[in-house]
């Protein structure tokens, strides 16, 4: 499983690199699948409301009204119909790829289970919305969908009379049935919207709007496709005949041929098993996660920088409990914390310069503390030699995910506080620092890449101090399949540093501190 996931992950990374070239990292559609899903939902909702103005509920009127808007008023209502259909289909595609991508990127287990399992109802509500929508047109496809659906439903022992009997003969169908279908086609999308809202509740700053450029491209392309290939109806439904050959919407109705080919019991069992399996995936197997971040109240003044930076809404500001003269303190919700370390990088107390006492910060990771990070940095710097020494702080989910000499691998590059960069340069531990984050198009931990960019650019608190020369920092955003590019850019950076005079303001660490770092390096080598 892990091997397959790794292969798929690299496959996704390569495809996304190609799309980076076409769209640019910020407009990359694969990095915007969630926001695109929301955007497409609003297109479908808007066009649906518009179409409802012209739609008539009736056995004959339904088809006639759809024909009228498609043919006589193609330039507005017909266009809305095509947009309604194509945006729905694109939403299905975006949703399925989003599901697969999160599965492959292993972002569904552990403390991210909530977003995964709340996505399962979204899946079914999208399909149900589409199915009820196709029913309303009352053409041959609608008849096929109606018959196949009701025959499947009749296999459940809940209906006193087979509901497929409503579609036996032309006389057996009443216009009230269309009123019911319109109600369902409005009610189910409303439930879908509720499910989508719940789906994003355990993340902060959820992106529900794609980049403006990507939104414009998507809308223009959908309008163009609607004008070039307008959605049309098939022949009107006729219950005296059977729709023998139908044009299927392979996004929303692809299960229908399967429903015809297999017994209803197999279909219902399959749906149930698939849903249970999908919901149970986060626990098959459960991921062993690092312990959640912990707060050291003696070093926390409740400044709330970690609250603002946490991508998972795992940190809350609560009234002070220890009598210290601050109104608030922070509290970590261990059930939501994924131990990405971004909070540690955001804490103004995270300064590795401190010499007296143990290095403790306001919010820290028990399994990878700031003190441990500082020790690792000193140890890794001890292994660097020659001119142009580069120390790499790498994201574990990017091109620098595997440890090697002179590289510290972090859960997220934003775990490194700006003071650590200052520490490395001003203590002469390296001539330059390479910050090797994951792919620019999307941070594995949602917001870490953006926060790191802002901090280094001195636009987000905690700021990188002015005394750190910007030319001694190299920032590389590279996905797991771009190890070659990371190596090349790091080598070029090292050459560039070697050509510069060395940093003359460095105040080297004491021998005690260096010895501690070297001892740690020896211990690690022995352990390896």
């Amino acid at each position, binding site marked *: 499983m892990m091997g397959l996931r790794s292969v798929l992950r690299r496959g996704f990374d390569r495809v996304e690199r190609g799309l980076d070239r076409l769209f640019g990292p910020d407009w990359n559609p694969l990095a915007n699948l969630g926001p695109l899903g929301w955007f497409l939902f609003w297109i479908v909702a808007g066009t649906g409301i518009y179409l409802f103005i012209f739609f008539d509920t009736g056995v004959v009127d339904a088809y006639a009204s759809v024909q009228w808007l498609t043919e006589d008023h193609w330039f507005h209502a017909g266009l809305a119909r095509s947009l309604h259909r194509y945006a729905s289909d694109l939403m299905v595609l975006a949703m399925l790829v989003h599901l697969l991508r999160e599965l492959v990127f292993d972002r569904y287990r552990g403390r991210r289970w909530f977003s995964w399992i709340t996505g399962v109802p979204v899946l079914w509500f999208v399909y149900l919305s589409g199915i009820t929508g196709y029913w309303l047109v009352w053409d041959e496809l609608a008849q096929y969908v109606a018959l196949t659906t009701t025959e499947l439903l009749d296999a459940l022992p809940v209906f006193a009379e087979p509901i*497929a009997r409503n579609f*036996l003969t032309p006389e057996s169908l009443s216009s009230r049935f269309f009123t019911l279908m319109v109600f369902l086609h409005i009610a189910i999308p409303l439930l879908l919207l509720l499910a989508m809202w719940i789906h994003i509740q355990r993340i902060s700053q959820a992106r529900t709007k794609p980049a403006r450029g990507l939104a414009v*491209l998507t809308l223009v*392309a959908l309008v163009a*496709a609607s004008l070039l290939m307008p959605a049309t109806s098939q022949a009107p439904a006729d219950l005296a005949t059977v*729709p*023998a050959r139908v044009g299927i919407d392979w996004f929303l109705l692809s299960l229908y041929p399967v429903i015809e080919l297999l017994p209803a019991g197999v279909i219902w069992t399959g749906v149930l098993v698939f849903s249970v399996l999908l919901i149970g995936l986060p626990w098959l197997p459960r991921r062993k996660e690092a312990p959640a971040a912990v707060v050291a109240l003696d070093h926390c003044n409740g400044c709330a920088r970690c609250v603002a930076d946490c991508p998972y809404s795992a940190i809350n500001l609560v009234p002070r409990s220890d009598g210290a003269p601050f109104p608030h303190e922070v509290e970590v919700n261990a059930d939501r914390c994924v131990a990405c370390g971004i909070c540690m990088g955001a804490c103004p107390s995270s300064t590795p310069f401190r010499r007296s006492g143990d290095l403790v910060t306001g919010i820290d990771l028990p399994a990878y503390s700031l003190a441990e990070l500082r020790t690792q940095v000193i140890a890794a710097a001890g292994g660097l030699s020659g001119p142009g020494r580069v120390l790499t702080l790498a994201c574990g989910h990017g091109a620098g995910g595997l440890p090697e000499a002179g590289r510290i691998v972090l859960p997220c590059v934003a775990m490194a506080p700006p003071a650590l960069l200052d520490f490395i340069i001003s203590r002469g531990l390296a001539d330059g620092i390479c910050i090797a984050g994951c792919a620019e198009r999307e941070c594995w931990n949602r917001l870490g890449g953006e926060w790191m960019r802002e901090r280094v650019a001195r636009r987000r608190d905690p700021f990188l101090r002015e005394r750190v020369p910007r030319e001694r920092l190299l920032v590389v955003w590279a996905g797991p399949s771009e190890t070659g590019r990371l190596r090349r850019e790091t080598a070029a950076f090292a050459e560039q540093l070697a050509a510069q005079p060395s940093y003359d303001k460095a105040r080297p660490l004491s021998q005690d501190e260096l010895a501690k770092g070297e001892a740690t390096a020896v211990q690690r080598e022995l352990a390896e």
Partner: protein
Amino acid sequence: MKGRLRHLILGGAATLALSLAVAYLSAAPGWQSLPADMALLRVSFTHSGDRSASCRERTPEELAELPPNMRIAKVCDRRRPPIYVEIEIDGATVLAEELPARGIAGSGPSRIYQRFPLPAGRHDIAVRLRDRPATQGFDYVGETQVTLVPAQSFVIDFRPESGGFVFK
């Protein structure tokens, strides 16, 4: 061509290609639900088995034990018996099934919904139903000869108030 203009053109072309592919797949390729030279016979009805056989008269002692407002002489089993249905097409029995009463208590009607794809052309169809367990033979019988055209939907319904089976 640099920066955003490049992304607008290349990204726009890719998005348009995807949208056109989506538009195509939203209606094609077609699905052959029923072979071109076939018609469909559907048998669907609901009917309750006759439970009169399970009825009996209460004894005077039994009636005396009941409150005056509940002294109904005849008592019947709440459960309904199953019905038995046979369908014969061109002399071959395609269905011979006992259909149980529906509902948790078995008090609802029995029901059937069956599809039989048939080649277009002439067919002799016979359908028989027994709703009383004690009866030998059948309580209702319907026979017809029909010439089906491709994609025709032919329905067998059952309405005892109209005399039994209805072919349409």
